[in-house]
């Protein structure tokens, strides 16, 4: 992972990004699909 350069960012902006990331992780988890069953001949 590329190194983060966030030392100069405000706590407010960091917190907003944190919320965005958390929300996206939840979206990603729910967007994963179940694998369909293999068709049995």
């Amino acid at each position, binding site marked *: *992972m*590329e*190194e*983060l*350069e*966030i*030392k100069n*960012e405000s*706590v*407010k*902006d*960091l*917190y907003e*990004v*944190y919320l*965005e*990331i*958390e929300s*996206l*992780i939840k*979206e*990603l*988890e729910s*967007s*994963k*699909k*179940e*694998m*369909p069953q*293999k068709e049995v001949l």
Partner: protein
Amino acid sequence: MKLKDINKKIDSIRNEIKLFDSNERKEIKKNNKIIDNYILELSKIRDNVLCEIECRYKDLIPNDMVDIDEIEVLDLLDRVKYLSSNSFINKMGIDKNLYEIRYSLSIDVINDNISLLLDKFLQVGIKLSKDDFKYSISVYKYMSYYLDNLGKLEFDKLMKEMFDSLYWECFNLVNYIYLCFIYLLDKYSDKFLLYVKNKYSSSLGYDYELDNYYKLVIRNNMVINKSEYNYYNKFLQGELRIEDYLSNSSIKKDIISKFVDYDKYIEMNREDRLYFYNQIRNVYYELCDYLMLDRYSYLIKKVREIYLSKNSYLNNYNSFLKNIKGLLKKKDSLNKKLFYLYNKIDDKSSKRLIGKYNKLFNQVNSKIDEISKSYDNYDEILVIDKIIRELNDESSYYDAFLVVVSNYGYINSYMKDKDGSFKELMDYLYSPYLSICKSIPFISDMDIESKLDTKYDLFDIEVNLSDKMKLKEDLEYIIRLSYIDEYNIDIDKFKLIFDVDKLFK
């Protein structure tokens, strides 16, 4: 990677997963793997961001904690109260000790107050000895034992045993001790008067000290109102709800709209807004003043009643003193003979001598009972005398209150089954924000509420007096808001601290 890059990344992932719509097994497998990788990558970024937040968010907590010197305020208030009274009994808090001795139901409390009184005699240079307590045989026995055992570890236990042993000899012992102290205070009054005259002799007077006290209270309040930490702590402790003070609070709009058009409020320039806040503060102080006047109106009514029929009380105090003087003279003459026999009597004394002693003992006690009966209304007699001597037609509600609060026994007995408390009343009387109380003559029975209504009709803000407690609450809210606004206190920042804090708990 900078913050803007992280945001870009978030957007691009969001856009990318929107396209993951295939239901083919192979595609799903591939997409799920991509998603897992993103989750892993985002989790690492999130943890780094969190780590950075954790390191720095506590720096946002305000550190302007106010450290008000309460001792300075209390010292000055004591000084003011001291100068406001012209009775040494009240100035030195002796009235409170006498009240506790007379009415307390606990022997320990009574003994503690006796000790406080002994200290106050010492302060003026009098070390009371056993001989000072020859008011009655039982008082002498109790107080001799008291002085002999004072300071011992088992003092409380010993005094309870002593009280118990004297109870059947003298049911009214506590009352006799009270009367004995009244007698001693009168006997040594010159020393007390000299002491109170010299204390604060360098003072420039009551008005000057009161003005200094008001200035100090107002200055301290201003320091508290300016303090960011003060608000932060109130939100932290749950005394105030932060949601009510955020820039987008709905309560804010509801409450302000009761007093002024909200759009107008929003458009107000700084000067107009400060003017609005100032009006709100003045209404608040007047309302508090009025509510307290209303709460304690029964006291004013009583003072007014006495004052208006003062002619019937004119000789009350002098007759009382004359009566007591006569009773004391008779008691003292019998008491002298009684103590002579008391010192003479022993196990070998004849029945006749013991009979004579008992007869005298009962005679003295019956005289003291008569004195005690005369003292039943002692505090009221003192207050009535003060009302007659110190109040006139121009005296304000404030002056009338000061007369009654200067007698601790009277005010506490009178308020016993009524609304309010002595402390609350004193806090009110020494508030620097009084206006009505100090302006209206106590003999006037004007309808203050209608006068307030008329006044507020002339204001350019709406003030509805129909629900005064709700009005008070609303005014308090706007006053807090006014300081937050005036001193640029950042409530949104507090919200951020609290939200972030939850992440690490």
